[in-house]
């Protein structure tokens, strides 16, 4: 961040209200997008794209979804895994029922099913808060897991109990199924994630996002400013579950190719909650950082011994991995309890005035 925003004066409120008011920030975003859209598909190996980039994007989207609920509205949820499952299973059913409709439309549509289920399980939030709400969302998690196993209609009475992604084409290109190339799948996931992140950022900076944050920071005062807790909380649950549902559908259709109920268990709920907490509550960029930290870092660490030519057995690598990640989580939380995003913001602030202390 070796730049100064000196001389960039805003002469209209419109310019001042922009999401990236600083020119260099806009250039940086454009650069990252160019790398993601052009460089990665051209230079990235299949392993890099399938095992790192696609899951990273999928988890980022799920983390954004959960962050809307936990970080922006202050309602804690442990049902993320199940809401992702709702997205995945409804997308699977939609793909079976409407084989001719473009799969990307179906993936977005499946988000609406997740949103509806999310609103339903969000109803208790009107009466209870904090840890008690966690317990009710946990109930959602277990109920939905049960439904994914016990309602065979959801997986088309398949003997294995798994949902398998059918092959689908968009404009003559195979986009899902075993024969879809990693680059194509990656580009679709990337496009959806970028678009939905942009939308999330728009909502958060507007009236609705402010209402969510008002509820989070001081619900009594929020109500006094005219925010109706019912609408604010349920809309947060709806939008959050929508994001999680789309992430779940993409996880199965563009990454795993097939999934069972284990892909949507409570461990995934925890995983995504950790991403949100470590990345930074109430920060979109933090959601990406959290997903990178929790998902990408272990994959890289696993590849390190091989890369530098040390011969260690796989189990040892795995143990080391747990230790390093665990230590880093503790380290980062001690250094900055508000997550990587805050650390990033502080670093930027310090560098902006560097070499002076203030």
């Amino acid at each position, binding site marked *: 961040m070796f730049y100064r925003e000196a001389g960039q004066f805003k002469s209209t409120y419109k310019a001042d209200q922009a999401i990236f008011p600083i020119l260099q920030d806009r250039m940086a975003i454009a650069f990252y997008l160019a790398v993601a859209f052009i460089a990665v598909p051209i230079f990235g190996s299949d392993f890099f794209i399938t095992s790192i980039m696609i899951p990273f994007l999928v988890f980022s989207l799920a983390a954004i979804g959960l962050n809307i609920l936990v970080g922006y509205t202050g309602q804690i949820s442990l049902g993320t895994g199940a809401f992702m499952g709702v997205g995945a299973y409804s997308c699977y059913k939609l793909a079976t029922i409407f084989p001719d409709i473009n799969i990307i439309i179906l993936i977005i549509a499946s988000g609406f099913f997740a949103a509806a289920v999310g609103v339903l399980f969000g109803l208790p939030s009107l009466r209870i808060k904090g840890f008690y709400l966690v317990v009710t969302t946990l109930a959602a998690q277990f109920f939905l897991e049960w439904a994914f196993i016990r309602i065979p209609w959801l997986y088309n009475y398949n003997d294995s109990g798994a949902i398998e992604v059918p092959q689908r084409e968009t404009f003559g290109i195979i986009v899902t199924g075993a024969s879809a190339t990693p680059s194509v799948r990656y580009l679709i996931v990337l496009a959806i994630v970028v678009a939905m992140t942009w939308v999330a950022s728009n909502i958060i*900076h507007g009236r609705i996002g402010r209402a969510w944050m008002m509820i989070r920071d001081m619900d009594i005062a929020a109500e006094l*400013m005219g925010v109706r807790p019912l609408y604010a909380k349920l*809309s947060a649950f709806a939008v959050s579950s929508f994001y999680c549902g789309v992430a779940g559908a993409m996880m199965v259709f563009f990454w795993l190719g097939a999934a069972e109920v284990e892909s949507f268990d409570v461990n995934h709920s925890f995983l995504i909650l950790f991403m949100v907490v470590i990345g930074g509550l109430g920060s979109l960029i933090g959601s990406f950082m959290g997903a990178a930290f929790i998902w990408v870092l272990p994959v890289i660490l696993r590849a390190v011994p091989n890369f530098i030519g040390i011969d260690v057995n796989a189990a040892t690598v795995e143990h080391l991995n747990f230790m390093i990640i665990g230590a880093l989580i503790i380290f980062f939380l001690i250094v900055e309890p508000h997550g990587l995003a805050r650390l990033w913001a502080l670093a930027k602030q310090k560098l902006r005035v560097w070499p002076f202390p203030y």
Partner: protein
Amino acid sequence: MSARTLADISAGEELLSVDDISLSFGGVKAIQDVSFNIMKGEIRAIIGPNGAGKTSMLNVINGFYHPQVGTITFLGKERRKMRPYMAASQGISRTFQNVALFNGMSTLDNIMAGRTLKMNKNFFWQMLRYGPAMNEEIEHRLVVEEIIDFLEIEHIRKTPVSQLPYGLKKRVELGRALVAEPTLLLLDEPMAGMNLEEKEDMSRFIIDVNQQFGTTIALIEHDMGVVMDLADRVVVLDYGRKISDGEPAQVQADQNVIDAYLGVAH
């Protein structure tokens, strides 16, 4: 009386009247048979020793508490049980005794939050943050900037409110209440914990709000000097009962009030 709008009521007429209100929490009687009214355009002070039921009274007026007995008439319309957001949509705005700002947001966003009720562009435009939604943001930003200018807090516009000193927090909170363009502004101890200079600033703002915007104000305050200077009329509560009501000088001379504050020999 039928429902009326603010324009129908001329200055000096009754804006809000509280009749025979009783409020209890279990066995604790917080307010007993209290009646008073607030005239349009006046500054009305509610005073009393600690635990007299002043804050409870404000909470009743803006719908946090529902009194067991009694009626409240606002703008000529008697109201039944109501939620705080309904009171807000009728034009009652307030500040809190313990600053209740949205700590995770900047000063600007906090004050923008006060405009919530005036904003109505739908979810679709909010998603795009373009066209009507963006125009709405800017239109309300203009109003917010006027209040920021009025309260002289331009320099902390983008600062997270959690980093502000106490006096400024109080000022931001006043700003948040003001941008809602309230018909009735309730201030719960606007000067608690302030030094003399901050009190003078705050008093000036309160008078300006009353004079410039014509806002009717009901305030709770412990600093008697401030109350006597600012208020047009004062109501005194003690142990949940009204013990005096009238102009400052009159209340000041009232033996009941003196007894309540200084105690009586038994």
